[in-house]
């Protein structure tokens, strides 16, 4: 309990520092929001008016605290660029709320694939005394790790979309209208994300298990008359998972923060694409919230990894 409290304080402090840093960054980087919205042809009066509407005439410190107070109250502000209808700008909460499920579901399907495939594969690889299998897996994983993800996305689109016609490339189905169709479409981008990660995780797990196999307790388990399979799954796997869990945590954080390239290739309206477009249009309220979101995700995932550590290895919780 005390531990969770400590982590919570760290989380809040980090979020505060990051939000200040992000805010400051937008003061420093060149480019004016007003100019970018109105274009260079606008009259100075119109510019001044918009500046006041957006509250940009006040000093940065005042603006930061006004914004922070709003966020704490749950009001995330409105976008500078996206409009809801003719008269209203789009609230950031609504904008992100719309895109978040896409990214989260994509992350969920990818993680399911990664964990479901890489762990049995890693164990199989560590067990293989067969040199051919060992070498084959080595080559396959090496190749999968080396392929850049956009290219993998194109390959998957070509192979499964155009040749095998398992899905319609570019035919994104919104989760609001047809959820199972949405998941079916999502499977392919998820696969493009998962393949290199599966290769890395499996390789990682294999190495970790091979190290662990030299441990004394493995010999003890064999001396009891246990089979190789049993030793692998019952004794070695859990101990070998420690470094792998960290690695999986890194992957989760990366995917949940939005896979920019894959979302682009498969034209998924997710967080990654929103982030790119908001940065390029200086849609500051959106970017600021996205940065906080990503920070939160990363810290939260590492917190989960920490908890998982304690579950896996009883020695840690007492240290």
């Amino acid at each position: 309990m005390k531990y969770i409290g400590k982590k919570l304080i760290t989380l809040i402090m980090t979020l505060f520092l990051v939000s200040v840093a992000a805010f400051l960054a937008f003061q420093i980087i060149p480019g004016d929001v007003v100019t970018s919205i109105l274009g260079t042809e606008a009259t100075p009066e119109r510019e001044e008016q918009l500046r006041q509407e957006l509250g940009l005439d006040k000093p940065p410190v005042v603006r930061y605290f006004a914004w922070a107070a709003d966020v704490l109250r749950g009001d995330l502000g409105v976008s500078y660029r996206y409009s809801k209808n003719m008269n209203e700008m789009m609230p950031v909460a609504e904008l992100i709320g719309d895109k978040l499920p896409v990214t989260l579901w994509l992350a969920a399907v990818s993680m399911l694939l990664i964990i479901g495939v890489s762990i049995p594969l890693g164990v199989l690889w560590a067990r293989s005394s067969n040199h051919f299998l060992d070498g084959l897996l080595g080559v396959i994983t090496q190749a999968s790790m080396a392929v850049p993800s956009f290219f993998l996305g194109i390959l998957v689109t070509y192979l499964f979309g155009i040749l095998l016609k398992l899905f319609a490339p570019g035919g994104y189905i919104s989760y609001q209208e047809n959820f199972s169709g949405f998941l079916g479409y999502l499977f392919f981008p998820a696969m493009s994300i998962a393949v290199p990660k599966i290769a890395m995780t499996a390789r990682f797990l294999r190495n970790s298990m091979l190290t662990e196999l030299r441990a004394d307790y493995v010999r003890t388990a064999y001396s009891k008359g246990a089979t190789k399979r049993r030793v692998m799954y019952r004794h070695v796997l859990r101990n070998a998972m420690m470094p792998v869990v960290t690695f999986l945590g890194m992957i989760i954080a990366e995917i949940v923060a939005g896979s920019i390239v894959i979302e682009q290739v498969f034209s998924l309206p997710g967080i990654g694409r929103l982030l790119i477009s908001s940065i390029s249009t200086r849609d500051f309220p959106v970017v600021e919230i996205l940065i906080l979101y990503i920070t939160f995700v990363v810290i939260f995932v590492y917190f989960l990894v920490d908890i998982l550590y304690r579950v896996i290895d009883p020695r840690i919780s007492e240290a």
Partner: protein
Amino acid sequence: MIRIENLSVAFDGAEVVKNVSLDLVDGEVLGVVGESGSGKSVTALTLMGLVSESAQITSGRVLFDDVVLQEAGKPRDQALYRRYQGAQMSMIFQEPMTSLNPTQRVGRQVEEMLWLHAEHRPQGPWKHASDALLMSGRRTGQKEEFRTRVLEAFHAVGLRDEERVYASYPHQLSGGMRQRVMIAMALILHPRLLVADEPTTALDVTVQNQIIALLRKINSKQNNAMLFITHDLNLARRLCGRIAVMKDGQVVELGETEEIFRHPRQEYTKRLMEAVPSRMKKRTWAAGMTPDSSVPVVRVHDLSVFYQDGSNSLFAQKKKQCVVADASFEIYPGESLGLVGESGCGKTSLSKAILGMNRDIRGEIVSNTIRPQMVFQDPYSSLNPTKTIGWLLQEPLRAAGALDQSKAMTRADMEAAAYDMLHRVGMEDKYFHRKPSQLSGGQRQRVSIGQALITHPGLVVADEPVSALDVTIQAQIMELMRRLQQEMKLAYLFISHDINVVYQMCDRIMVMKEGRIIEVGETEKLFRAPREEYTRELLSSS
């Protein structure tokens, strides 16, 4: 019952076990004694079917009750072996710290032995899955029965509070308790053969004694045969009816224990016995110094050493722990002061404080010499592997020169001093340009000693300097340390867990327990009439 016939085992073509023949009958205790690399462990692992797959049996066979377990030229039949492993023959290992799975409760680990050899284990294509279900406790009746048996086994090996032990993870138990758990696990199915590979080497002396007593008790009660592997001749003598002495993969001598001790036939056996430090023997090394009124090299007065809690947090108050409390003693020029006590008693913390490596202290350390130097236990990891011996020997001189300009020496002078030191520690010139990896353990320890002595300190702190070495090398290093002591008027603070080594080496002995110095005395006197009960226990243990 067990016959090893003419067994040879090779790794990558190099034979490490050569034509070994041993046999054991029920109830017999056979000791296998040898130095590291003698092939004793490989022999035991081969017998147990645990030697790694890269090992090849090049000749001979292993039989259990006339059943051939393995034979030269045939692959090991794992299925056959698994029926014997654990049920008919089981093994306990040297390192109780690492021989248990750190992430599983010890009760479950012992219970696994029962599951693995239970009669009605599932068969068929789904056997792995149904096995896992069984283990997770679906058939509660059997689970309860197994649990009771494990608790009984814990009780039988002298573990009290069995329920708590059952639910503990290995790191929550002490080394002695873990070794008891290992023994309970090995014996729960009443195997006819127990292979014990240095089962007490990693334990504190008093615990060592208890484990040996336990093994002996079990042996007389269950009448199981035991193959006892050790480097310690004294230990083998206390426990074994017969002894096989191994050297370079061969059994050089085999016979009744007392017969071997009284009339060793082989030269090697004789040398081995002479090298073993023992209280039976005359103290050849101790100089017989008596502290006179001369000025001590170091005087420690009311010294307490603290240790800061390692937790690195913004929020928690750092906790301080007192690891050495109110220590007072002197070390005189030319004497060896032994420091004994169990692990965790504060020996190392005390020595670090004297060396000035721990500043969180209270009390007084008055030194009448230049900065004391240290010799470490592990000669393999305490020398920088990328540097040459010559460079390593000069390093303390460079450091001294950097600290104090007046002590700075020219390059040529430093080199000359390094060569001189190389000779003093009994090594030839040619080693000057070699790297540590090209040296044997004994040679490395000589270099470590040379490093410590090259600045001519009045005091050297030696932390278990011979514990990682084989007995014959051990004797040479002790000899060397004694000679250098006389030549250079050195004082040693000699830390060791081995009472016999301390007896041979030290003029006075200081006993530590739980951070306090409970007794100091001249070696002979202390051995003859220890004042404290704890000292008596410590001394009687080997």
